[in-house]
């Protein structure tokens, strides 16, 4: 006979303002098996937990129901409280009367009724609970970092620093990411390459770090501590081990019309190329779309010229399988496509460029060697107009509803760099709001206005059109209440940023969640910002939300700290809610084995006694509890009802349904 205690939480006024907590605890007190029912303002506080602990001892409770917030928030807290009072932690049930009741209902009477039903449901389930014990599984002491931008680089360096092995898997031919393309960085204006490339070299030289560039994640199996990942190393047609990066091939290549994506397609590159001078690895790669040898079998000049015989036209994609204890997602961002913003003329006029293109134009290693010139006629612009929030904070549906966060600062940076190098240039900036919170950030923006004489105009731009050789920016000045037509030689669009599109496939492979804007969801917006809701998966950089470099680096290090904490453990407590087959019901159909995402189910031939001395050998399912994650896929698939999940048995679920339907 169970002895159940019910504890109803007010959550300050979060629950008690909408749910009559007194009534809930009074009604639930009348339920069979309930020996004590109480309510308290903050059940998760030390006092609240003490109330639970003391009641367990005082009333010899065999089970506890807490009516509070979502179990995702505090189930672990209350399990610990139960355990410290000598109760098996799995003899706890949480009824969610905050997210599922008080936060979504307005009517007190209805909300109270629903809270009572949910409490009753938890009690009904708890009556059938049995104590469970979690097993242990070993931790593979190696981490995977997906993405080799500044976020991935920082996470990898920190994890390696702690002594663990790390693999960086980067989909492009070099690590470095978007930061490698930048000219200067705010708020100190030091050059991006000067602070990034040494870190890239550190990665390459660190014995603990293995860099797999031009590689993508193909498959992910397993669970926290024991991931098995398939990585596709795409063919680059150059043997990485033999290539010394001498660059002879790139000079001899006759096909030079491939767009240089490192320079944001502002110029071209040969079919065999090294992405940029400081690329890591400093190894050439062949673009099969442009290579004459690969396209029609004629040429082969690079292979003839290569002093180390590194060119291999027959190279194929290769799949490597590796095992990891933890995975860091650092897939970064890209600027949005501007096809929905034709009014700004990006696709029509060459001299309308994006901010990332402008970075390349201003960069000493860029297509113009850092000389400011506009793409159409290579003339030095005398008037440049910047437009902020192109697709950011956009509620029309053409862009993104969020603030991209980095644009105010980099636009101020661009404006200052232009005024510094070319003081006779007039610089205008259209903005909705200037948002520059952060250490030395607002001072930076004020310097642009006060010292560099940048013309900031509060208002939005209607359109950009051409008049003769020049562009005209039509916009409104909201402070002076006038319409402006500004003749400009060049227009720079601060395009919104969005998560790199590769993240969607990766999120699916990792079974981690993604929001409506394709940003990965953190486990808790405030308290678990670098953990994903899936155990063992961590989030680093812009894949989780818009961030600038300092913030990305902080998050990347935070992420590494979490990974190190995980890899430092020799064993992890397994999930106690594992599946098991009733061998007498199992028909050996294999359906459960096929749906198990963790490979936890195998089939064994077992001998059964039939009576009268006869025996029979039957094929039955067997679950490895160290591998089973308790997802329940097998239990709903099993046609004979043989498969059941501890802690979530069919009986328990039906008892819950009955408790709800009874009302």
């Amino acid at each position: 006979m169970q002895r159940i205690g019910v504890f109803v939480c007010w959550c300050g006024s979060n629950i008690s303002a909408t749910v009559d907590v007194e009534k809930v605890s009074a009604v639930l007190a009348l339920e069979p098996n309930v020996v004590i029912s109480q309510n308290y303002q903050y059940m998760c506080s030390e006092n609240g937990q003490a109330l639970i602990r003391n009641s367990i001892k005082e009333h010899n409770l065999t089970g506890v129901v807490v009516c509070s917030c979502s179990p995702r928030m505090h189930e672990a807290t209350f399990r610990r409280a139960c355990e410290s009072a000598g109760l098996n932690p799995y003899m706890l049930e949480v009824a969610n009367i905050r997210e599922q009741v008080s936060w979504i209902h307005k009517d007190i009477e209805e909300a109270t009724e629903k809270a009572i039903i949910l409490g009753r449901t938890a009690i009904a389930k708890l009556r059938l609970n049995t104590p469970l014990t979690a097993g242990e599984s070993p931790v593979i002491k190696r981490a995977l970092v997906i993405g080799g931008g500044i976020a991935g680089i920082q996470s990898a360096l920190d994890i390696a620093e702690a002594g663990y092995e790390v693999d960086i898997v980067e989909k492009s031919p070099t690590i470095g990411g978007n930061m490698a393309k930048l000219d200067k960085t705010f708020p100190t204006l030091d050059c991006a390459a000067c602070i990034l490339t040494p870190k890239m070299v550190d990665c390459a030289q660190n014995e603990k770090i293995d860099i797999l560039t031009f590689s993508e994640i193909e498959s992910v199996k397993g669970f926290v501590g024991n991931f098995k990942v398939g990585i596709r190393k795409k063919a680059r047609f150059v043997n990485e081990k033999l290539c010394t990066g001498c660059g002879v091939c790139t000079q001899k290549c006759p096909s030079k019309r491939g767009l240089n994506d490192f320079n944001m397609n502002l110029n071209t590159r040969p079919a065999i190329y090294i992405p940029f001078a400081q690329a890591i690895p400093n190894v050439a790669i062949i673009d099969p779309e442009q290579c004459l040898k690969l396209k029609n079998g004629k040429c082969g000049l690079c292979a003839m010229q290569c002093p180390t015989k590194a060119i291999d036209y027959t190279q194929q994609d290769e799949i490597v399988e590796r095992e990891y204890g933890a995975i860091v997602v650092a897939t970064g961002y890209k600027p949005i496509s501007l096809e929905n913003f034709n009014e700004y003329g990006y696709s029509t006029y060459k001299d309308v460029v994006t901010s990332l293109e402008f970075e390349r134009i201003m960069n000493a290693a860029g297509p113009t060697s850092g000389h400011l010139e506009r793409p159409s006629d290579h003339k030095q612009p005398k008037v440049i107009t910047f437009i902020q929030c192109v697709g950011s904070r956009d509620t029309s549906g053409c862009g993104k509803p969020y603030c991209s966060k980095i644009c105010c600062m980099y636009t101020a940076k661009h404006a200052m760099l232009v005024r510094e190098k070319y003081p006779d240039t007039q610089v205008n900036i259209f903005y909705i709001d200037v948002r520059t919170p952060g250490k030395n950030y607002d001072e930076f923006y004020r310097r642009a206005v006060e010292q560099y004489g940048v013309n900031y105009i509060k208002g939005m731009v209607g359109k950009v059109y051409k008049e003769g050789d020049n562009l005209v920016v039509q916009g409104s000045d909201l402070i002076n209440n006038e319409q402006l037509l500004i003749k400009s030689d060049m227009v720079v669009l601060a395009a919104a940023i969005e998560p790199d599109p590769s993240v969607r496939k990766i999120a699916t492979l990792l079974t981690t969640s993604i929001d409506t804007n394709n940003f990965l969801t953190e486990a808790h917006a405030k308290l678990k910002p670098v953990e994903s809701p899936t155990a063992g998966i961590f989030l680093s950089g812009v894949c989780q939300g818009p961030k600038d470099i300092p913030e990305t680096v902080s998050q990347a290090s935070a992420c590494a700290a979490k990974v190190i904490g995980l890899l430092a453990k020799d064993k992890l407590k397994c999930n106690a809610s594992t599946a098991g087959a009733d061998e007498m019901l199992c028909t050996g159909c294999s359906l459960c084995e096929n749906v198990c995402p963790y490979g936890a189910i195998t089939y064994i031939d077992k001998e059964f006694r039939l009576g009268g001395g006869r025996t029979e050998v039957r094929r039955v399912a067997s679950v490895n509890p160290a591998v089973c994650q308790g997802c329940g896929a097998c239990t709903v698939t099993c046609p004979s009802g043989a498969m059941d999940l501890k802690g979530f048995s069919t009986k328990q679920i039906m008892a819950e349904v009955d408790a709800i339907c009874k009302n």
Partner: protein
Amino acid sequence: MKFNYYPGCTLKTKAKELDAFGRKSLEALGVDFEEIKEWQCCGAVYPVAKDEVATKLSAVRTLAMAKENGGKVLTLCSACHNVLKRVNNDMKTDENMRLKANNYLALEEPYLGESEVIHYLELLRDYVGFDKIKAAVVNPLKGVKIGAYYGCLLLRPNSTMAFDNPENPTIIEDFIKAIGATPVVYAFRNECCGAYVSTTNNELAKKKSSAVIASAKDEGAEMLVTACPLCMYNLRQNGGGEIEVKYFTELLATALGVNN
């Protein structure tokens, strides 16, 4: 499906050709339509004051009449379309307006915004289909470079009109392609022509209209098309007369071979 055609006052006086070519083309395309019997003036301008009820009533009467006949109101004049669609939206969403208008009109059955206001161009795009029009064309306007002039009233406010992307509309360009001509995209195609300002500040209207025409000519347009009689007036009278301006229905009728 039957469409309740609403011509409006201007199409019976100054813009008879917009109406006549529109009807002929509908017949040629086999669209089932009928002029709403006792239609009244739409109100001419949508009153933006929240508490302005009286001037919206004639629009409500028309909408309520159409409701009894399937509820599809087909408009052609941009201004009428703007007024009818926005008043209909008020009747659908603004409880105060709904109550007052119905109290005043005392219709047999209260009108709650059930009708749907569809512009002729939307009918071509969404009900007939530009592909079908292309197939029905007998005199394609090959090689004619035509600039679409949208003006304001079809596009804005976008939240109510939901006609096309107000910054980068494409529906008239798609129409121009369907009749075999070449659309010319120019920056000022969705700028104001000067509208009613031409009666009080003609200089300003001239400035606005000539900017539209200059922008279109700059991109190589030989002709402009519009759906709005007031835009037509401004572009012709105040635009400097440097470019031919036609109603889109006239070109449609020409392409379909029914412009006699």
